[in-house]
């Protein structure tokens, strides 16, 4: 479905000032207080067999990438590093468990659990993959974790409701969306952690964040404004505002960095944006309440929170390829560096589902702490 006519361009749009910082801090969240509930899988109508399709063609240029973080050069250099770099880890925010877990995808075990108060939700990794930046929407701030020592390096308090987070692949700058306002904080990396270096005006309830591979353009999904802000990183100003579906939450760049995709929570679809054209160019229907998108090879994958499925789609044709039954309330999703596994965080039943992107089958399930969200770039 083409939505080109709905696009709009807003230049030099006046912005009202952001609300003042909230006073006080929300208390740390508690877990459900019960033993781990036994959840039963819910089959969704018509959600099984994957059509047989040619295998995705892969090259260094089509490595999975979220938020433009993995440049071709970086990917290659990572691949050339010694074996530890190939050990794939998932860095999972377990929001109700108030922790960040480091999960080894090969052995399918939680290796480390790092306590992080304040309902940790969003996550992004530094360009060198040595640090994790974790947002705490209830504790109002961001926590910097050193992934090699598995320790909290520092914390920075932020006003509002820090939720979405992204990293500039060139400068290492960190952008944090304030869910309750119309702004993104700009944070500068320091040896100790992060320091606040200003903010950028966005639409309402900024959510998912991505940065183009050249580090020049920041993209922000504005959930309440049904739009994507295109922001010039150098001037820290919105240059375009692109209309998309209803309540875009997750925002992910295509592997080649030329298109952006939003998961539209209320219109049950994914919008494709052509960045050069600056407008929405297509949509694909999803399950109920789509949340976050990932790319593996030449396929797109979106978590359907209410359907307990992942919908696979072809980003070239914007056609659905099939659905995969996963756990309860799937949220965060990302593809491993080799593009051979899609990892999904199931908030409801405290697990990760590992999906083979070609067969569209779940190959493994890994138990996690309470309420895994992993909203962002969480695979190392």
């Amino acid at each position, binding site marked *: 479905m083409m939505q080109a006519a709905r696009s709009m361009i807003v230049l030099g749009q006046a912005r009202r000032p952001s609300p003042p910082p909230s006073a006080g801090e929300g208390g740390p969240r508690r877990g459900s207080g019960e033993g781990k509930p036994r959840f039963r899988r819910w089959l969704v109508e018509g959600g099984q067999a994957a059509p047989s399709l040619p295998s995705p063609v892969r090259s260094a240029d089509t490595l999975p990438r979220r938020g433009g973080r993995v440049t071709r050069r970086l990917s290659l250099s990572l691949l050339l590093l010694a074996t530890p770099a190939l050990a794939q880890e998932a860095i999972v925010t377990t929001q109700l468990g108030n922790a960040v877990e480091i999960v080894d995808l090969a052995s399918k075990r939680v290796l480390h659990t790092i306590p992080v108060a304040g309902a940790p939700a969003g996550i992004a990794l530094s360009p060198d993959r040595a640090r994790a930046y974790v947002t705490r929407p209830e504790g109002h701030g961001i926590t910097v974790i050193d992934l090699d020592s598995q320790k909290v390096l520092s914390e920075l308090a932020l006003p509002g409701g820090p939720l979405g987070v992204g990293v500039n692949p060139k400068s290492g700058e960190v952008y944090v969306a304030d869910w309750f306002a119309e702004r993104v904080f700009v944070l500068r990396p320091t040896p100790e952690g992060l320091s606040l270096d200003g903010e950028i005006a966005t639409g309402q309830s900024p959510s998912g964040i991505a940065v183009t591979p050249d580090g020049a353009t920041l993209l922000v999904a504005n959930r309440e404004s049904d739009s994507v802000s295109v922001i010039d990183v150098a001037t820290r100003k919105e240059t375009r505002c692109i209309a998309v579906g209803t309540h875009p939450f997750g925002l992910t760049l295509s592997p080649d960095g030329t298109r952006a995709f939003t998961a539209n929570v209320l219109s049950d679809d994914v919008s494709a944006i052509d960045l050069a054209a600056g407008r929405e160019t297509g949509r694909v229907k999803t399950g109920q309440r789509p949340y976050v998108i990932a790319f593996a090879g030449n396929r797109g994958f979106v978590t359907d929170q209410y359907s307990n499925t992942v919908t696979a789609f072809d980003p070239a044709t914007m056609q659905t390829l099939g659905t995969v039954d996963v756990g309860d309330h799937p949220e965060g999703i990302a593809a491993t560096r080799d593009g051979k596994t899609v990892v999904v965080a199931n*908030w409801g039943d405290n697990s990760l589902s590992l999906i083979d992107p070609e067969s569209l089958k779940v190959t493994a399930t890994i138990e996690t702490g309470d309420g895994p969200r992993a909203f962002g770039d969480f695979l190392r």
Partner: protein
Amino acid sequence: MRFRTLAAVAALATVTFAAQAHGPTRQKVSESIEINAPADKVWAIVGNFQDGSWIPPVEKTEGKGGNEVKATRTLTLKGGATVQEELAKYDAAKMTYMYRIDKVDVKTLPVNDYSSTIEVEGNGDKTKMTWRGAFYRGYMNNDPPPDLNDEASKKAVSDLYKAGLQNVKAKAEKGS
């Protein structure tokens, strides 16, 4: 009678544009009970989406669509408050269904984006019934007042579930 009585709802007046948004932390509640009756008997009490009479505060159930997905029902509670709900999944063979609240006043139940699952598991003459919920707190903006924060919302749902499960147990174990 309400699902829950709340005193400090005046704070809601301070909700600004973010009223459509929800808090950033979805909560979950799960309650179970063991019932000394076979599963069929328990399912006969709770398995009809168009009959919410096993939930203690419910006085009347009106709806359409039976037990088909997208069926709707309006529960009228003792005292007059209403809750509008929609069936999302239903599997009689597995004795389970899931539904969502489409509309409820936070004075009645302090939740947003609420979904709920009923599960009946038989084991001979005994049955385990589980009632689970996923929802955001009653206050949708930052820094919630105490009566609409995560803890208060979880307690309200948990209390409702416990009362409902106890009622089902009493009904099912009462004989025939």
